[in-house]
């Protein structure tokens, strides 16, 4: 059997970039240092930007280049840089505390990827193949993003988890051919807004606690639940 995909090279590249995004999501799962995690976040957004740019190319949809540019400028460079500054300025703990071991988290990640392929591939059988693979892989990225948010105690790594989740959604939105521009811009915009909100909160949290560990917040709340 010849090693040629039935859908041609453009499909293979789209597929490869989407798969790469899932791999980078896995890289986030085993980071134990905050700064390293921020670097991986930058890489994640960079791969997303490549993937979106490739979609723009094969769909002949120039407006998607804007989305790709936004992903590159804001999410790959600006936000990781700002979060990094925050870590230095606030003198935060550089180690990430995780719930459960790295091994178990990785296994859970693999299970989530299997789950999303199992769920999405059969139902999208009639959709166009590029969108089909993209949606399945995008769902994996979304679920791994959720996993990061659940297993990390620290507020900054929760933000990182949330941003990787949004990246997954961006991947799905750009994979859906012809999805109106309105949505892409607003997605990018909302991420920016979300970041500002988070930034404000992190600073306020700092004012009060001297720590940015979420479990600390739970302690403060005490028995009010």
């Amino acid at each position, binding site marked *: 059997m010849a090693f040629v995909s039935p859908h041609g090279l453009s499909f293979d590249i789209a597929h490869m970039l989407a798969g790469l995004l899932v791999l980078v999501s896995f890289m986030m799962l085993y980071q134990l240092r905050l700064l390293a995690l921020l670097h991986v976040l930058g890489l994640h957004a960079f791969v997303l930007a490549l993937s979106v740019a490739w979609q723009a190319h094969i769909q002949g949809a120039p407006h998607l280049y804007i989305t790709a540019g936004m992903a590159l400028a804001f999410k790959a460079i600006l936000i990781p840089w700002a979060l990094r500054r925050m870590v230095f300025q606030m003198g935060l703990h550089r180690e990430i505390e995780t719930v459960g071991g790295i091994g178990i988290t990785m296994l859970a990640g693999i299970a989530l990827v299997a789950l999303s392929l199992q*769920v*999405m591939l*059969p*139902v*999208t059988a*009639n*959709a166009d193949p590029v*969108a089909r693979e993209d*949606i399945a892989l*995008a*769902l994996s990225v*979304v679920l791994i993003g*959720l996993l990061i*948010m659940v297993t990390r105690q620290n*507020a900054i790594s*929760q933000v990182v988890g*949330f941003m990787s*989740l*949004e990246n997954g*959604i961006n991947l*799905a*939105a750009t994979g*859906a*051919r*012809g*999805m*109106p521009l*309105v*949505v892409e811009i*607003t*997605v990018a915009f*909302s991420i920016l*807004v*979300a970041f500002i*909100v*988070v930034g404000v*909160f992190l600073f*306020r*949290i700092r*004012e*009060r*606690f001297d720590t940015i560990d*979420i479990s600390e*917040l*739970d302690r*403060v*709340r005490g028995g*009010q639940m």
Partner: protein
Amino acid sequence: MPDPVTGILLTPIVAAAILVVLPGYRLGAVLNVIASLAALLFALTLLWHRPGTTPYLLVDDLNIVFVLLNCFVGFTTSSFSASYIGHEIQIGKLSLTNIRFYHAMFQIMLFGMNLALLANNIGLMWVAVELATLTTVMMVGLYRTAEALEAAWKYFILGSVGIALALFGTILVYLAARPVVGEGIDAMIWTNLFHAAPDFDSSLLNIAFVFLLLGYGTKVGLAPLHAWLPDAHAEGPTPISAVLSGLLLNVALYALLRFKVLLAANPNAIAPGPLMIGMGLLSLIFAAFMLYRRRDIKRMFAYSSIEHMGIIVFAFGMAGPLGNFAGLLQMTMHSLTKSGIFFCVGHIAQVKGSQKIADMGGLTASHPVLGWGLVAGMAAIAGLPPFGVFTSEFLVVSSTFVREPVLALILVFGLLVAFGALLLRVTGVAFGPVIGPVGRVHASYIPMFAHFGLVLMAGIWLPPPLVTWFQHVAALLG
């Protein structure tokens, strides 16, 4: 006279821009009330003059109900907020800068909610819900206490995850619609989607609905996705608790209902009803038991909101003309009653200087108006006659008994458990020995009595035009 839809959407934006720069909280509060009143008047003109459908905005019989309710409670809350905020400034809990920010955010939130209700585009609706969420997150954290920040952070994280899942569901709906409706903006317009829904790929639609139910369901406060709701209600300023319970939950519910109609129009898709019935009952039973362990009065009424959203989602899940009618009525009654209760509770907490139930007691003796107001609110929200909630809960229960007696038993059990909890807590606060400060109240009681009065009227006599309208909408919902 401008177009009503433009009026409803433009008034809050202009008002927010002015409120940000306006010095002095009295002027700001007055402008806040005037802007909310203007939006309400514009919403009322929708009844006579209905603008045409555009690719972005839509007015139909369903969303007029929601928009009117939204603008009405927005207006009454702004008048309650004027007296509430004055007190917060006196005791130094809020600074003048905070207040400018608060008033502007209040208007932007109303804008976001009205836009979500009027949107004819599933993408635009999503953006509007996100906008409303972000503004409420900011307001929940307004007091900047450790608890308020924790509540805002929890709300922000859970709300964002919910909203992200809803966007994923929205993308899947677009994917399902694209082969039938065609590429681009056409495949995101409600009115197009409704007509083409029978031809959509049903399995894609099924998966989409699961994401939408989880996503918007988080915002509705359905168990087990409700964790943000009690904290956000308890730690934010009370006017925000009133609009969160009375309005924002409804907006998310409205989005869910729209998608449910879409799914129901497709013969091969799963029935959305059982999923909604399951989550509704779970929320009801869970919240009913949680009511017993509450020590904070705002937190208690927040759990009561989860309980009521459970009943409402259950009723819409049962569907049919009677189920939908009961759901609509229950939703309207709950919005009016619960925001009225928060108006009352807000003043009580200000007098007592605490939200702890243990710090309050004998209110009917020390503050008769607030005490009896709370008793009336409790009676109304627990579903006692002659209040309107009784009518709607009776309809939900009786229509369920005819079709699914077992589900009706579970429903009645949940209602009784919740009733017991509310009775237990509120009797302690309203009667018995006087506990805590007995200072004078600087309150305006009009918003509270307006709400309770309407609920009482609905329990005794429902105006026939309203009944016809709701019956018509119930038929639309299928």
